[in-house]
């Protein structure tokens, strides 16, 4: 049973593999944002794009042997959380308004 240390050491992948993975996630996220019409799925695709940024940052950080990239990743996480929070709050707001509008129409029909 190899421990994590040797797992990392014996790995036959390099920076290019991580970057390829990152670009693939970024492209999938971009396509998702562009072609999906569901707001939630669009938000999820944005999360994929942000995650791809994080992968490339961590990979660069590892291969440059420099911790600053890791710090940047944490800030990206904070930004992603803040954006998702505000975006979903606005979504809830719209949902509530739609609901109210529907109810109003309903009332008008009843009268």
């Amino acid at each position, binding site marked *: 049973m190899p421990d994590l240390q040797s797992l990392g050491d*014996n790995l036959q992948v390099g920076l290019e593999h991580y970057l390829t993975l990152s670009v693939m996630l970024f492209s999938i996220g971009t396509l998702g944002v562009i072609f999906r019409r569901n707001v939630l799925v669009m*938000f999820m695709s944005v999360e994929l794009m942000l995650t791809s940024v994080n992968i490339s940052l961590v990979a660069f950080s590892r291969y440059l042997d420099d911790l600053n990239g890791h710090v940047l990743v944490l800030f990206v996480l904070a930004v992603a959380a803040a954006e998702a929070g505000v975006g979903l709050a606005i979504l809830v707001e719209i949902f509530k308004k739609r609901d109210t509008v529907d109810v109003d129409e309903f009332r008008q029909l009843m009268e």
Partner: protein
Amino acid sequence: MISTVIWCLFAGMTVMAALAVATSKNVVHCGFGLLFSLLGVCAMYVFLGADFLAATQVIVYVGGILVLILFGVMMTHRITATDLKSELVQPVAALIAAVAILVLSVGMILEQVWPAKEHLDPITPTTHAFGVSFLTDYLFPFEFASVLLLVALIGAAMFTRDSAGEDSDHV
């Protein structure tokens, strides 16, 4: 060898799950796709020796994703009607842009010589270094990020709170 196979498995899971997010018709499936994709990314962090980030990824993202799925289950059938596409964002132009991104990026990976090290240092724990840099070089960004999160909190509370007019109707 075996670690390379494991890496490929996780990378494959990440990409397949991401594809599920972008293509699945069912929003719940999309949410689970995102969950597995982010877990795969978490494994990548482990491979890259980012222990602290891997833990943060699980705590922040997986928690956040579960909330997303909940939202999705509760309300998407109404929200899908909201048309966010501007008339100026044409699908064809967007597709061209996406393909351009892909071509540029692939070209970049194939052609670029990165200033990467040939021989990697052994993986060391990062948490201590994180703590030190947040309280020295990155103190201001750290505080600034906390103010940013406070703004997001205020905004989210403002949008989701019932307005006073509605309250007075109930009381």
